[in-house]
């Protein structure tokens, strides 16, 4: 059992919501700050998903931001950044979070990143933990430590926070609205969680638990770690799992087929428009020719230029049609060609 996190001069703490940093690893943050490390906090959500009290209107995001800033100062965090993404819906913004965190870590170049655990009991926590793990697989130079907030974590490191527990308590007390007007209750609960870990080190005190990863683990290793080595067995899969797998596959196939049908419909519409456009072009060409015949003399330079332009366009459309219609051509590429040609055509005014 490790009793301390690896030494770090620069620490990044990632919190899904304002308050998670204080509840999950407030003591550890305070210790790092006290020891002179640069601690940065990145809060992903805006914290808006807390109901307003009866009969009172308030800007909950502003209130929670104030609480966050107060707690940040108490813990000794030097830099605070918030992504302000919608609280409770972070799973809908996975790519955005991934990019933001990746950019942030690349810029800051921390030694250590603290992130919520992969099995924490909130979907926002889980997705942020997963993204941190993905980044550990692609971004070098730092160690990842998962902390626990809502669900106990299988840990490999316990950090003694006994001497900074009062700082953690004060930080938690800043979160009056975030913690449903009961910060004392939350401190009592998280204190108990931290005290309970003393049983593992055989001396009294408060300890924050972490699963520290120096190297990116495989999915299999994660499951084995979280479940103390559970191995999926052939018997355990059972016929019901097979039905579930088939259900997933059939659903995926049906979704793809629907997408294909939509694309076919788009191609059909674009082909119709293309055909109409080509007919219009041919009509114009015929008119020009008729005008030239009627005047019974050679065309003016302007007419020559127009005829040349129309001829080029017609040729372009013919090429496009030949590209789109042959069987076996890729639907996607055909669609993009049709779109491009149509854009070119429709950008010209009718009198041009």
């Amino acid at each position, binding site marked *: 059992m490790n009793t301390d996190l690896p030494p770090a001069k620069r620490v990044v703490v990632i919190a899904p919501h304002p308050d998670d940093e204080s509840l999950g690893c407030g003591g550890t943050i305070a210790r790092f700050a006290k020891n002179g490390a640069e601690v940065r906090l990145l809060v992903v959500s805006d914290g808006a998903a807390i109901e307003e009290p009866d009969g009172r209107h308030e800007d909950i995001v502003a209130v929670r931001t104030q609480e966050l800033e107060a707690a940040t100062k108490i813990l000794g965090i030097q830099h605070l950044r918030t992504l302000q993404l919608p609280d409770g819906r972070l799973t809908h913004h996975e790519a955005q979070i991934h990019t933001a965190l990746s950019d942030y870590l690349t810029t800051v170049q921390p030694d250590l990143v603290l992130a919520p655990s992969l099995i924490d009991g909130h979907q926002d926590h889980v997705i942020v933990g997963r993204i941190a793990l993905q980044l550990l697989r692609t971004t070098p130079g730092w160690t990842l430590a998962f902390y626990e907030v809502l669900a106990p974590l299988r840990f490999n490191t316990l950090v003694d926070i006994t001497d900074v527990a009062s700082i953690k308590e004060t930080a938690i007390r800043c979160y009056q609205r975030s913690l449903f007007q009961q910060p004392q209750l939350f401190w009592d609960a998280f204190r108990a969680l931290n005290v309970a870990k003393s049983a593992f080190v055989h001396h009294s005190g408060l300890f924050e638990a972490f699963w520290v990863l120096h190297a990116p683990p495989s999915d299999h290793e994660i499951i084995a770690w979280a479940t103390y080595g559970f191995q999926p067995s052939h018997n355990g899969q*059972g016929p019901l799992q*097979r039905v579930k797998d088939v259900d997933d596959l059939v659903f995926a*196939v049906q979704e793809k087929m629907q997408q294909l049908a939509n694309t076919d419909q788009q191609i059909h519409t674009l082909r119709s428009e293309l055909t109409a456009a080509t007919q219009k072009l041919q009509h114009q060409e015929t008119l020009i020719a008729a005008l030239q015949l009627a005047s019974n003399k050679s065309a003016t330079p302007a007419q020559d230029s127009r005829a040349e332009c129309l001829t080029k366009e017609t040729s372009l459309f013919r090429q496009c049609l030949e590209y789109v219609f042959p069987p076996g051509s890729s639907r996607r590429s055909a669609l993009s060609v049709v779109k491009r040609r149509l854009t070119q055509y429709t950008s010209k005014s009718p009198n041009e």
Partner: protein
Amino acid sequence: MQKRCAILTSFDPYAFKGGIETYTQQMVDLLQRSSYEVDIYHTQCLPEGTDTNLIGPSFHSPFLNSLSRVGQAFYRVDHLYNFVIAHAFFGFAYSPPRIPTFTIFHSTHAQYAEANRELFSQEWYYEVKYLFGLGAEYASTIGKRVIAVSDAVAREATAHYGAIDVVSVVTGVDQTLFSPRPDKKGLRDQFAIPRDAFVGVFLARWGVDKAIDVLQEVMKTTPDVFWVLILGTGEPCPLHERPNTKIIENVERNEVATILSCADFLFHPSRYEGFGLAVAEALSCGLPVIAPPVGIAQSLLALPPLHALQLPSYETGTQQVINAAVETITRLHRDRDFRHACAHHGQRVAAQTLSLPQWEHNFLAALGIASREENPEHLSLHQDGAVA
């Protein structure tokens, strides 16, 4: 101690009027007469106190989701029963089974999907064949004793799902209800069917899989036939204004028997049947049945003179089936002796092979209940869950 049995199904058998519901009612009656207390669980009736929030896994398919609740919820109460019987894949989520479990296959969705593949979308085909068939129906064979309602279904269960030791118990027809009735003309008056008409009956859901396209083509080319369509729950039928046609919907069992008795033949063009209850009931009523070789019609119409009523398989082409049907109807209309011979022979075959007492005996034997007095306590599970 009171002997108890549970039935897992999809819909309330007392609210719907389908083949499975009729079968369920017959089964309940038989088991109760054999001293069993029977409880039925279905998507609208889960074991008391079931908290559906605690039930997993969840499926994309809403139908499988609701069936999954039935099977998973049954784990809470399975210890109260001596054994459980599930229809088709409706009990798939009671897997692995902890008490002796029987699955009754009325058809196989894998074969049904193949037979109707050309009629529906690819999405439908994948769902029916792979999800309901090779997924859920396959799961319904693991560790469970499979009872098929016909030899054809037994073969399909083995071929598609690798089911072993499938017992074929041919469904019975209540021949006290489904038997020829006197005073045909008087009966026709009850339903406003012309007394002297040559009457053909179609008894099924109005659905593409019941080959309504073939029916309509045949109706067009047989203007001298008065058609009675007895329709179960299905799509709306567009033939209400058609002359020489009577449509009767939501009919009670007793009325079905009466209507069959006042007709001259049953036309059952369905592309796929596991059993084909309509065929069995019509034959029992002394009605010649014109049908392709699917379900029970495959064996019952195999020998002379009934073989003349068997249409070619759809594999030969839909038009071939239509032509043969029109030809057979014309012959039945013109050849009174042929018609009577078919009616007489069909009824005899039905009496020999489709009697309710015979089904009851075979069904109890398949459950391991040799006689009504014997206690089926000897039923036990192998280690892999199969019923011993």
